[in-house]
């Protein structure tokens, strides 16, 4: 398949691995930001083929994993309403709130539907004027333009029975939070290619300079990941720290400006709580004042649901790369994909799920 097969070529993979081996002389800790990249490493068995000097840590770029528990509890409260059709991206349904997940709400009679695009949720609202249709607008910069577009469409069409439960987060503030932490181990980043396709990477040079870390915008196929690693290793070995773009076929420096305008027209920057990490200032987007009528939290009066997260798994340390999933005492025991303790085990992009699915042998022998 064009645009895929040439980036999965085993011969090119071998060549790049040899180049990385000859470039690396010291031990380096490199974080791939995005859960999609984590899965691509493990799904292809690529992580085990890297030279031992390179330690990958798996970053917080999994939207399902970082959505805070209380936001899921709010979703559950709204979805349980008899007059509500609750719509969501698929993998959000399996994330447990305090007591249940959206699947359980559906089993108990709630109308919970998987949509592939938020614009479908707007269509559902048009087709069901006697119902309240709510879309769970989560995700990073990648999903924000489409989610913003849904709100714009609803406003333009004067659709009154549509609202969004927003929990948008952004990558650069999370990178700064990790780099600014006293326990930080990360020496270089593979930045998330899809996020940069929307936002560009003009936010990254100041971060690279301030914290002296190489940041390489990287795609998701094996060849992309290896090219990204090679660039990061070359910078680290030569003492450089700049932002560079491996994913040129999709990412421009300034990004997709029309998508950015759509985001800015609907959302404004806000503090966000990250599951497993805490509140990071100005790290997310919320609806701007002129779109408050579409705010599901207000419409359903769930703003005051606050949930205290209990203590079992070590998602926080995993999400910012301090520990690997097998180092969690619950991993593979109390915490499995069938009964996940934490969000990183739930999501298709979560680091724990990736280890559980592809790497259990490393743990059980």
């Amino acid at each position, binding site marked *: *398949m064009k645009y*895929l097969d040439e980036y*999965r*070529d*085993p011969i090119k993979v*071998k060549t790049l691995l040899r180049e990385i081996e000859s470039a690396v002389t010291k031990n380096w800790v490199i974080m791939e930001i995005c859960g999609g990249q984590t899965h691509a490493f493990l*799904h*292809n*068995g*690529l992580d*085990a*083929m890297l030279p031992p000097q390179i330690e990958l840590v798996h970053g917080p770029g999994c939207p*399902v994993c970082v959505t805070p*528990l209380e936001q899921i509890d709010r979703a559950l409260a709204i979805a349980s309403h008899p007059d509500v059709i609750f719509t969501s*991206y*698929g*993998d*959000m*349904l*399996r*994330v*447990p709130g*305090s007591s*249940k*997940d959206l*699947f359980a709400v*559906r089993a108990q009679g709630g109308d919970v539907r998987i949509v*592939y695009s938020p614009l479908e949720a707007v269509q559902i609202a048009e087709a069901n004027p006697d119902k309240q249709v709510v879309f769970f607008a*989560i*995700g990073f910069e*990648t*999903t924000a333009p489409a989610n913003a577009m849904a709100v714009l469409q609803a406003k333009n069409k004067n659709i009154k029975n549509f609202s969004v439960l927003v929990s948008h987060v952004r990558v650069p503030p999370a990178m700064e*939070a990790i780099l*600014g*932490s*006293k326990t930080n181990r990360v020496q270089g980043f593979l930045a998330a290619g899809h996020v940069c396709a929307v936002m560009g990477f003009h936010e990254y040079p100041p971060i690279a300079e301030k914290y002296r870390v190489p940041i390489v915008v990287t795609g998701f196929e094996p060849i992309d990941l290896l090219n990204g690693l090679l660039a990061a290793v070359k910078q680290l070995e030569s003492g450089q720290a700049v932002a560079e773009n491996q994913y040129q076929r999709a990412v421009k420096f300034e990004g997709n400006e029309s998508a950015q305008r759509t985001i800015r027209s609907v959302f404004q920057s806000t503090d966000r709580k990250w599951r497993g990490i*805490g*509140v*990071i200032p100005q790290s997310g987007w919320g609806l701007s004042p002129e779109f408050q009528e579409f705010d599901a939290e207000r419409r359903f009066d769930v703003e005051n649901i606050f949930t205290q*997260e*209990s*203590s*079992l*798994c*070590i998602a*926080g*340390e995993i999400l910012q790369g301090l520990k690997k999933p097998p180092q969690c005492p619950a991993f593979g025991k*109390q915490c499995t*994909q*069938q*009964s*996940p*303790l*934490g*969000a990183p085990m739930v999501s*298709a*992009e979560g680091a724990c799920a990736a280890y*559980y699915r592809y*790497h*259990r042998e490393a743990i059980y022998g």
Partner: protein
Amino acid sequence: MDDLDFEGYTCPVPIRRTDTVILGHGSGGTLSRDLLNRLFLPELGKAAPRALDDSAVVTIDGQRYALTTDSHVVSPLFFPGGDIGRLAICGTVNDLAMVGAQPVALTCGFVLEEGLSFDLLQHVVASMKAAAQEAGIFIAAGDTKVVQKGGADQLFINTSGMGKIPEGVNISGANAKEGDVIIVSGTIGDHGIAVLSAREGLGFETTLESDVAPLNHLIQAMIEAGEIHVLRDPTRGGLATSLVEISEQSNVTIELNEQSLPFKPAVKAACEMLGFDPLYVANEGKLVAFVKESDAHKVLDVMKKAKYGEDAAVVGRVIGTGKSQVRLKTAIGGTRLVDMLPGEMLPRIC
């Protein structure tokens, strides 16, 4: 940002125990297995040592018979390449054939929702008749129930079947042996993606057709060509789930070769787009066979010449015993584990 709790953070969620049935319990993966192990097998499965095969084997006066049952609930009822009627016949014929039986007769039970059109039902029944003729079996008995509007989604069909197992044939998920060559009968994931594309709301169209087909004639030819140890039709849960089940039943290590797995480009593209792994997508007219190493060539040749086996391919082998595991050699030369489908397959976010 001093108050960020990076160090001591301990996460969140309480262990999830569902006290109600959720859709994932019907996905054919580990949740389905949990339901079996927790509820059905302890109460009802004591006398069925082969409950995890596609059919049970019952011996009467020295003759072995295969028995099986399957309920069919598909939405939409008509999909590219098939419909619920063809599915109901082929599903049960195939389950019988997967233990090496020659299917003889089926029964069918219909649950009809009030308001269902006769025209639609007629189409389904005609399709069942055609599939039964193709498979060479007859419908021996039937039953009809009507439930009030909303009590069912248009039409559910249960089919049960019986078949005769010829002497010398011994096929079971527990019979995989070291060295066995693993063959699939054709492209993987066609049915699941065809049905998905016919559903509303996914926003893509394909010309892909379901592979739903009766495989008993193909299997007959295979059995005559060589020694078959295991057969399974990788329906719900896909090829990955079937192979994990077999590795557990036989306590063997299986190695799959990603590059030899046959996929239609449309299936691959749809899976890339939706974030699905085609190894978990359902098939209805495909089988996976574990064949004695020395007979593998003969069996593969026969398959390629037979209807529904034209695209058959060797995809892996049994590389060891004593440890149940499925490994995949990835296209780029790495290795990873393959697990069962954990629950419902969900489109990813981005």
